[in-house]
């Protein structure tokens, strides 16, 4: 149990998907304008990463390995993740408009998101068991949401101040702030 906790803590804080693996930068740059959309994005990513990690895990060990088709891993994972996102959006549209109202607008953004694919591939290359796969995917999504939320609170203030030089407005300043956050998160490395 302790080992799973270390895995969880290390994926959330130390090997944070954004700050130390640079993945999920596209949504990070685009959607972190305000806190509510950051949270919505976080939950949408959590749902998609956990769902597609489970499906890809069983698809790989169940189908690809038995047929000896490991080299098809990349294309099958992409198709599975894309199908999963489309299915979720379709399901939300049809059956729960309220949930669609809060999460639906983020789903199209995650279709070809680096983080989702990277987690699915990592579960295979790191030879994780199903429990570790779950812990890893939840940890990554929580780490993603945490950094996105913290960043959106900072960014709201960033856009308000008028003294930033014109060239730095918008994304360049956001990246430098992300660098400072990576420095802060780097301090936690000794935790485990």
């Amino acid at each position: 149990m302790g080992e799973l906790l270390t895995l969880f803590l290390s994926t959330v804080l130390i090997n944070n998907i954004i700050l130390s693996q640079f993945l999920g930068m596209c949504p990070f740059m685009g959607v972190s304008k305000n806190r509510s959309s950051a949270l919505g994005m976080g939950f949408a990513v959590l749902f998609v990463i956990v769902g597609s990690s489970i499906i890809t895990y069983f698809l790989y060990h169940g189908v690809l390995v038995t047929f000896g088709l490991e080299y098809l891993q990349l294309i099958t994972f992409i198709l599975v993740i894309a199908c999963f996102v489309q299915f979720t959006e379709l399901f939300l549209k049809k059956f729960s408009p309220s949930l669609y109202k809060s999460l639906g607008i983020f789903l199209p953004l995650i279709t070809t998101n680096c983080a989702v694919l990277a987690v699915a591939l990592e579960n295979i290359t790191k030879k994780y068991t199903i429990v570790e796969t779950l812990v890893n995917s939840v940890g990554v999504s929580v780490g993603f949401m945490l950094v996105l939320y913290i960043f959106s609170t900072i960014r709201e203030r960033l856009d308000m101040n008028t003294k930033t030089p014109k060239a730095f407005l918008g994304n360049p300043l956001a990246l430098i702030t992300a660098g400072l956050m990576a420095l802060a998160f780097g301090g936690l490395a000794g935790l485990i």
Partner: protein
Amino acid sequence: MQAIGLVLVLGGLGSVYALLYYLNKNTPKPEGCEEIESSCSGCHITSCGHHPSHNE
């Protein structure tokens, strides 16, 4: 044996993806949500569903 597995897996996934993508595009958004525009600024990421390229 391998070839059958390949055609089954990829053909199956491909057709399911096309079907879901097509169905998804044709199901209208639920009534209260037409006007929600995502807060992301006009970016150039074509893979994002909101990118104009998806709804020609």
